[in-house]
């Protein structure tokens, strides 16, 4: 049949001829030259993207560690120490963000946004967590960005960067966290605050849960205002936020109703069973 015929045709295919033709391509033709430059351009772009991804990962890891550290604040008597250590850690993160800013000089940030967004969100989460512990309020995006304005620290740095500037002019780099990244970071913050609430009860701290409840409700109201007009990721986080808020509110309820009856050292047990139940439910669904 025709299928068989086709097969035979391919067996006789002049591979040798094809190879010869390929070798006849002039490697320094205009087309080849331009493709060589394309190769360079694409490689440079990809390398930069990779460097930014690495930085973003470092930022994420260090921010997460800061958050864990700050959780220890609640149960430790040396709160001041912990806060100071957290500041040191966040400064390290900011140095990494400075490197990001340097990589992005002269570039359109949105081209590389996907590479750095996760790291920035984690950073927002960490820095807002620290801010809440210190001030019981929510840090604004402007405040965050103010801390992300960097200047060249020493002569060494200015001479290393290729510049046409006068050496007297200070180099400044800055990175602006986008509103979306800020929102997503704050949404993640609420999860940490929920954990903070549960653990603070376990420490016999019965004031924090109520403060948190009010704080989280305000954040929740803010997000509800945005509703579904934001990007998809925000709506997804809104759902988790609702659950966190519910957990906190239930904790406050339990405290209010049963708090006076139960001795403080047993309060922790009440809440650990409750959260176990909640987590089990989540596991099933």
């Amino acid at each position, binding site marked *: 049949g025709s299928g068989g015929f086709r097969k035979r045709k391919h067996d006789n*295919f*002049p591979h040798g001829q*094809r190879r010869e*033709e*390929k070798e006849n*391509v*002039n490697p320094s*033709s*205009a*087309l*080849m030259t*331009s*493709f*060589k430059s*394309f*190769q360079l*351009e*694409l*490689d440079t772009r*990809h390398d930069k993207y990779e460097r930014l991804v690495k930085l973003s990962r470092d930022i994420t890891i260090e921010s997460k560690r800061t958050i864990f550290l700050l959780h220890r604040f609640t149960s430790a008597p040396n709160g001041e120490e912990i806060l100071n250590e957290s500041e040191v850690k966040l400064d390290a993160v900011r140095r990494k963000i400075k490197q990001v800013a340097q990589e992005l000089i*002269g570039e*359109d*940030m*949105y*081209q590389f*946004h996907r590479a750095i967004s996760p790291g920035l969100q984690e950073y927002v989460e960490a820095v807002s967590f620290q801010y809440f512990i210190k001030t019981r309020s929510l840090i604004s995006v402007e405040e965050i960005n103010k801390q992300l304005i960097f200047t060249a620290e020493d002569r060494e740095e200015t001479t290393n960067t290729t510049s046409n500037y006068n050496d007297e002019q200070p180099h400044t780099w800055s990175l602006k966290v986008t509103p979306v990244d800020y929102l997503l970071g704050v949404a993640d913050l609420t999860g940490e605050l929920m954990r903070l609430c549960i653990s603070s009860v376990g420490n016999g701290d019965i004031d924090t849960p109520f403060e948190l409840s009010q704080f989280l409700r305000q954040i929740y109201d803010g997000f509800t205002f945005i509703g579904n007009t934001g990007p998809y990721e925000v709506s997804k986080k809104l759902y988790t936020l609702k659950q966190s808020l519910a957990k906190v509110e239930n904790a406050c309820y339990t405290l209010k109703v049963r708090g006076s009856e139960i001795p403080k050292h047993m309060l922790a047990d009440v809440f650990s069973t409750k959260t176990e139940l909640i987590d089990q439910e989540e596991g099933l669904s």
Partner: protein
Amino acid sequence: QEIRKVVQALEQTAREILTLLQGVHQGAGFQDIPKKCQKAREHFGTVRTQLESLKTKFPADQYYRFHEHWRFVLQRLVFLAAFVVYLESETLVTREAVAEILGIEADRERGFHLDIEDYLSGVLTLASELARLAVNSVTAGDYSRPLRISTFINELDSGFRLLNLKNDSLRKRYDGLKYDVKKIEEVVYDLSIRGLNKEATVGAGGEK
């Protein structure tokens, strides 16, 4: 929203150019090629105006924020420009030339520009179109064009081989190139075993 409106207008113009140029695949179309190219270039005038208006719809330094909106139509336009240039001169249009046809900048620094990946995507679409043209040329009786297309595509393929692509949509498109190359080789092979390509070279010199 406004951006979307302008993009839709661009897509419409692109469709018009495409319909115009598709005509070259038919027998009669071959004679008309220079005329079609000229007409296509006129349409590109409209494209230039539309792109001008697109530029005004957003801040110049946020090109990549909205890039996804016009990415597809821009790639389409690159392909169309490349097709016109090929029909005129049988060469690959350069990035700078495309930018000129479209009335935009070649480099990012100067504003609304043509991203290299969009340029390459458009060029790959051209390859597919030429594979189709090779087949239809034979049907229409033109036996020399497929050979020229074959040389061109081989060079293009060699060029693309130089690139280190990531596993993204551009790479997937590039993977399609080898099928285009193969198809054209088959056409050339069909011609050569039947001696038709020799006929073509003789015909070119000996006619009239």
